[in-house]
């Protein structure tokens, strides 16, 4: 938004619309369970989240989480003349631009400067004193850890998120924006920290690249469109913001799960019990919560950190078996076998109508779901993929299908078969699955013989 016309317009609008535009109400939504807690626990949750995450418009860069909040971070390698330093260990999400703020610590006290220039090739950064700096200001010394453009990635991520994502995924990332209720399947609720289509193994979280790829390619067959034309930096900023929302959601969820055990208002039958509960809560808050919370944070942060490691990525050891009638036949066997049990959900003909879709499933608390069928971790009814349509939500490369079979689809009943099937078997299965949309032609008949009437049909239809 260019600023200049806005300056003229804003006073006018305020004059015109007396009610003003003040109450914009950009706030995170708390989980529903929070409302069931005793009042002090609710306050505690609110304070806790506000302290570590802030609000959408004033977010907190909580260093415990593995998030690239800043435009870049780097260590000063060598210091040169007049504020010029050479950087090492550069971690960059956004480009380094003139005028960005730089923060660093010397003996525990914070110092700041401004980017006066940056040479990409030499990694040479020129640091200038901030406005109003005193005489003692000095550029960072070698070894200093620089934070360049503090919080900028998260801020930009938020703006882009608000523009492109928010009306479906919601301010909180709960998949409950205004448009969400009309969509099937519903937009992802990030707050479980789970993303379906990842390159990582079964128990691991999603990598940044996985999220970026979904943003770039979209999810075919759903309302998640492809945002192909976002730049890499824009996409990276959104990814960081989404990860931040996911971690925020997880932090909230973990805490609530603990609090719900002991501090649900409905569990207190009498006033005394309630008072007792409040008393207990006050004690626990002082004694146990800080440590518990630190542990939880550690676990959450670790899980995301580990996912980012190279070892988390699933890669086949053996190359893909070329698609052939034999391989496809073998794949079909595996598809029907008791090891893979594909048929139980995807059905004999791959239409996603296996017997499991008729079974009554149980939710996390052991209750039966009201509707028979498969449910995901978000408690929604889901259908196994209809393999005859040739639409693959997680991507259509053989590698993507391999990963779906190897490590499953997170948060859904589609489990990973990486341990029970060999690479060769998975490839056969991949070949079979990829042949299902073409099954009306015999496998191996191949693509090279055009069906005789088809091209004419095109002409006829178009006229």
């Amino acid at each position, binding site marked *: 938004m260019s600023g200049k016309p806005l300056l003229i317009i804003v006073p006018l609008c305020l004059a015109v619309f007396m009610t003003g535009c003040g109450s914009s109400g950009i706030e995170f939504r708390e989980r529903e369970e929070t409302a069931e807690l005793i009042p002090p626990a609710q306050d505690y949750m609110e304070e806790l989240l506000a302290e570590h995450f802030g609000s959408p418009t004033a977010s907190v860069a909580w260093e415990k989480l593995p998030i690239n909040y800043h435009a870049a971070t780097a260590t000063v390698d060598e210091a040169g003349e007049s504020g010029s330093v050479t950087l090492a260990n550069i971690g960059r999400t956004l480009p380094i631009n003139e005028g960005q703020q730089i923060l660093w610590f010397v003996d525990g006290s914070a110092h700041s400067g401004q980017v006066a220039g940056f040479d990409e090739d030499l990694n040479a950064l020129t640091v200038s004193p901030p406005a109003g700096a005193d005489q003692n200001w000095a550029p960072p010394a070698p070894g200093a850890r620089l934070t360049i453009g503090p919080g900028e990635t998260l801020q930009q991520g938020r703006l882009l998120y608000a523009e492109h994502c928010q009306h479906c995924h919601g301010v909180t990332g709960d998949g409950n924006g205004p448009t969400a209720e009309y969509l099937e399947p519903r937009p992802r609720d990030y707050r479980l920290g789970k993303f379906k289509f990842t390159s990582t193994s079964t128990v691991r979280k999603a990598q940044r690249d996985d999220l970026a790829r979904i943003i770039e390619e979209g999810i075919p067959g759903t309302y998640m*469109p492809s945002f192909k034309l976002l730049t890499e930096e824009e996409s990276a900023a959104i990814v960081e913001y989404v990860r931040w929302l996911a971690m925020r959601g997880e932090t909230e969820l973990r805490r609530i799960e603990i609090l719900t055990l002991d501090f649900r208002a409905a569990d207190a039958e009498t006033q005394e019990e309630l008072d007792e509960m409040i008393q207990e809560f006050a004690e626990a808050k002082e004694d146990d919560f800080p440590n518990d919370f630190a542990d939880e944070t550690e676990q959450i942060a670790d899980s995301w950190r580990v996912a980012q490691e190279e070892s988390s990525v699933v890669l086949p050891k053996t190359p893909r078996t070329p698609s052939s009638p034999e391989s496809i036949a073998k794949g079909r066997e595996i598809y029907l076998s008791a090891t893979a049990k594909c048929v139980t959900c995807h059905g004999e003909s791959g239409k996603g109508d296996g017997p499991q879709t008729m079974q009554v499933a149980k939710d996390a608390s052991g209750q039966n779901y009201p509707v028979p069928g498969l449910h995901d971790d978000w408690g929604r009814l889901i259908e196994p993929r209809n393999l005859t349509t040739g639409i693959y939500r997680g991507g259509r490369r053989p*590698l993507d299908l391999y990963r779906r079979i190897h490590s499953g689809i997170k948060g859904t009943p589609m489990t990973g078969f990486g341990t029970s099937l060999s690479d060769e078997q998975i490839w056969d299965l991949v070949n079979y699955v990829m042949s299902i949309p073409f099954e009306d032609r015999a496998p191996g008949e191949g693509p090279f013989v055009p*069906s005789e009437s088809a091209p004419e049909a095109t002409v006829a239809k178009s006229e």
Partner: protein
Amino acid sequence: MFWPLAALYLCWIAPERGWWFPSEAMSPLGQRIDDLFYMILIVTTVVFIGTQIALGYVLWTGARRTDPGNEETTWFSHGSHNLEVMWTIVPAGILLYIALYQIDVWREFRMRPYFPQEQMTASLTRMGVDTDVPGDRALAEVTARQFEWRIRYPGFDEDGNLLPLMTDPQPTDLYTVNDLHLPAGVPVMINLLSGDVQHSFFLPELRVKQDAVPGLVIPVWFQAEKSQTYDLLCAELCGWGHYKMKAQFVAEPEQEWLQWLRELHELQNEDGVEETDE
């Protein structure tokens, strides 16, 4: 009655301020469309100025006549047959001319027998496609859906020759989303489909627009002069995300396109093993 002047002034300065065509027409047909546009613009501007001046004139003289003390009488007239005939026949001639003048461009753009079939076939032959196979000469199938463009390209046979695009999806086909690549400098044809509701394939720089209608396969041809990236967007209301259907059309020389397609082929058949080996 200053407003016609303001309007003219605005039109005058508009091109400088960028409030005009997004760029020069990047296709030969687009240039002809622009020429037609400018022709109509000139005719209508003349008429606009003429009629507004006439209106201003009659108002001005009328205002003077109502000045106090002015003894001039009203011109009592029920009209003039000659004038009526004149201002019926002259505009009729101009309008008819404008109408007939447009027909060529339309015919070439939309009517299949007038498509530049030969050039399209020649281009396919250059790229090694077996053009004896029956079928149209489309290079890609663009399927619009809420809210993105899914594009299907023909793949390669075992010998690495480009196959013609088949009506039905083939196992060899290659797919992209929101990213249309086609050869530049030659007429290219796509088949336009819709997977759900109505959309419209709009390349503003090339002046191409064609609705994608559910249930129809509509051939669209165009020719990008320069090898560069163009905007591709939807121009027919298709739901809440109508504005989100942002895509690009990359025109590149034939061989580069072929190369890009090969890379896409590699990417599409990736099994992730080479990466670990290297």
